């Protein structure tokens, strides 16, 4: 039954349709990614050419942020803190979970919508408000949060202005992701089509399922920590401020207990914040990577025309990964003096967690083995994901072991490591997903030539940006330094790389232009796509492109596993899940 014409606001702004909400999430997420990347392009100018006015936009920044076009240290810190916050909480997660998860989960499990459409609408708008609060902090007195995306106390507690709003923004984002993850889990458990047993689920759905559990269970402790830090900032408590703290020659806390005004009472523990923060933030890393693995799995199976090698092993690995990610958090804290017993525990769990990641990566590589690969644009991005994520993962091992981490901690080596995981790793997977499912969402294909320019340009630039960071970090160059650390002699030979990295970063900005053009022109002028343009097997290809509001005109039934490609004796090289067996 046709759903009938709805007014504009109901259709595009406050829609209950998971596909519209998914696209809202995806576009908002992409805009935030661009914004977060722009912040970094400004910072990279200061690092490449310290104390010189930033061209073009330097004059547009206020004198309070950049005097004469030269970035001030406080503003540099704001850009750094907000780059991390925007990229992780407002860009990648909303695109990977809110965008891809929302759009694809109901389609891939053969459901008409999410289990709670109104909750879905609410989680998008709570996220949007949280994002706006975060951006608006640039305009409050004292500027945006400047204590890093980790907001370590005591600096974050005594920092000016924007930090309070950063905390308020986080409460919104956490509320949004809690609502969203409940919705995802209930949808996957309750609304699977007839015949879609657990081991027939597409790998992408499994990855989203595990990520939803992480969001559900790991985010609330950060919410608790956020409330405590808010109390420290506005009510003068000292959850995170130790007694006798002196900053810049001024006593911050008094032991008397008769605190008045903002004077803190002392007795707090800054490490408490680190524990609560990383209890979220390490699982958060897997929230970033799991959907990426899911997307890559779908695309590799489709473009190798083979079932995923070791599907069951991959599914169990995803579950094990999600569980283990909750017990590795303190490997971010080896230099806090935690003692060898505790360090031994976290080193062990950290080594264990690398095993399921390697199982998944190896399974994906084994799927490629001996296949006749279709090098489509989404496949290029998916293939690049494998070595890029591999580099990111392997460079993480020395950070997971305390003896090597103590040398590498807080250097550019760490930056290189996690960016290899998230930037050419997760973000490449997200691009792959956009190119792959764009025909489903719009009914049109994206341009292949522009896609290839985007891919090769980004791949080269990504490596020129992040590979030198390993050299800098191994040489001992610290992160978060306004001028890159010019006053340190050991940096003398390392600083020249900042020019290389800067030029590569701005060039990569240019290579995103073909993508932006491609994205918007293809909506209107792309080559028309059929219901199943890639000859794929999962349920989202059973319906029209784009699907109607209720997704499927006849609710589908599932007859086989998710990736029955090249079945011996079959007429075609793909046997969709929604087609009954012959005979």
């Amino acid at each position, binding site marked *: 039954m046709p759903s009938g014409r709805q007014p504009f606001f109901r259709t595009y702004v406050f829609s209950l349709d998971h596909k519209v909400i998914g696209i809202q999430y995806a576009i908002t997420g992409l805009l935030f990614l661009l914004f977060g990347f722009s912040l970094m392009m400004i910072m990279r100018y200061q690092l490449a050419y310290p104390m010189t006015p930033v061209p073009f936009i330097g004059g547009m920044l206020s004198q309070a942020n950049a005097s004469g076009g030269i970035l001030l240290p406080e503003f540099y810190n704001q850009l750094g803190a907000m780059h991390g916050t925007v990229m992780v909480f407002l860009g990648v997660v909303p695109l990977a979970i809110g965008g891809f998860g929302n759009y694809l989960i109901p389609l891939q499990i053969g459901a008409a919508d999410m289990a709670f459409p109104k909750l879905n609408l609410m989680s998008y708008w709570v996220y949007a408000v949280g994002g706006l609060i975060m951006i608006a902090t640039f305009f409050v007195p004292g500027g945006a949060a400047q204590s890093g995306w980790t907001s370590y106390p005591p600096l974050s507690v005594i920092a000016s202005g924007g930090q309070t709003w950063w905390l308020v923004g986080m409460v919104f984002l956490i509320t949004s992701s809690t609502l969203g993850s409940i919705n995802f889990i209930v949808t996957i458990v*309750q609304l699977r089509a007839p015949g879609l047993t657990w081991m027939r689920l597409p790998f992408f759905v499994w990855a989203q399922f595990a990520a939803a559990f992480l969001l559900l269970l790991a985010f609330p402790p950060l919410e608790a920590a956020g409330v405590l830090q808010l109390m420290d900032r506005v009510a003068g408590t000292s959850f995170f401020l130790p007694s006798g703290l002196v900053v810049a020659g001024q006593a911050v806390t008094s032991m008397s207990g008769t605190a008045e005004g903002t004077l803190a*009472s002392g007795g707090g523990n800054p490490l408490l914040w680190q524990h609560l923060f990383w209890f979220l933030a390490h699982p958060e890393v897997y929230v970033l990577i799991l959907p990426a693995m899911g997307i890559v799995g779908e695309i590799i199976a489709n473009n190798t025309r083979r079932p995923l090698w070791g599907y069951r092993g991959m599914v169990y690995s995803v579950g094990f990964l999600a569980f283990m990610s909750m017990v590795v958090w303190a490997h971010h804290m080896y230099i806090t003096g935690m003692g060898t017993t505790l360090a031994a525990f976290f080193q062990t769990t950290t080594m264990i967690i690398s095993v399921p990641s390697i199982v998944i990566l190896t399974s994906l590589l084994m799927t490629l083995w001996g296949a006749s690969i279709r090098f489509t644009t989404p496949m290029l991005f998916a293939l690049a994901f494998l070595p890029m994520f591999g580099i990111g993962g392997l460079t993480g091992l020395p950070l997971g072991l305390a003896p090597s981490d103590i040398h590498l901690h807080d250097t550019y080596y760490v930056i290189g490591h996690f960016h290899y995981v998230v930037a050419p790793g997760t973000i490449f997977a997200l691009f792959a997903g956009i190119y792959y499912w764009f025909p489903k969402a719009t009914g049109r294909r994206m341009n292949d030539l522009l896609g290839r320019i985007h891919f090769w340009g980004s791949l080269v630039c990504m490596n020129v940006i992040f590979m030198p960071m390993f050299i800098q970090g191994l040489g001992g160059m610290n992160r978060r330094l306004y001028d890159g650390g010019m006053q340190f002699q050991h940096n003398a030979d390392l600083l020249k790389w900042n020019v290389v990295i800067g030029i590569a970063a701005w060039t990569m900005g240019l290579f995103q232009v073909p993508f932006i053009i491609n994205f918007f022109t293809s909506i209107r002028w792309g080559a028309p796509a059929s219901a199943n343009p890639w000859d794929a097997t999962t349920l989202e290809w059973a319906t029209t492109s784009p699907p109607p509001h209720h997704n499927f005109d006849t609710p589908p039934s599932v007859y086989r596993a998710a990736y029955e490609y090249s079945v011996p004796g079959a007429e075609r090289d793909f046997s969709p899940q929604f087609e009954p067996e012959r005979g």
Partner: protein
Amino acid sequence: MQIPYTTEARPDTGLYNAKLGIWLFLASEVMLFAGLFSSYILLRTGAVEWPHHVLPVGMATANTALLITSSMTMVMAWEALKTNNWSRHRACLGLTVALGVIFLLIKFVEYQEHIAAGELPSRNTFFALYYTLTAVHALHIVGGLVVMLYLLGPGAKLWAEQPVQFTNRVESTGLYWHFVDFVWILLFPLLYLL
């Protein structure tokens, strides 16, 4: 467009959607309070000295009794729907709201006494924890009361059209209410007695 399993249970999982949803929500709430309670433990074990018996045990005991009673009336409100006894449902749910409101009033008096004595959150870590933990809990009480008032007011119309769905809503609200009650049962000894 109809989403399946909004009222009836899915045969292979044995759950309707909202029931699974509320349990997942409670799991996230457990983690929220786990974060707060861990903070309490870490700060208390690291403290040089810790104040004892500075809070009014009498008022807190009364509040504990009130919340436990309200959990009971909540179950009775749900049971009344199962046995089709509408007026008893209204009475029990109304009683639950009343008990929740009295809880908040007592809490308010307690806060006022401390504030009047100059015992603000910034006094020391104990009072910082006391205010934060009880305020987060009180916010949960307020949230529960808003939902119950909705079920007593505009939400009650659903009973005539969709009795099963309305009963499910009361059940989900009850699960949440019992959880909030349970948190208080942990807070009471941690803050007032130990």
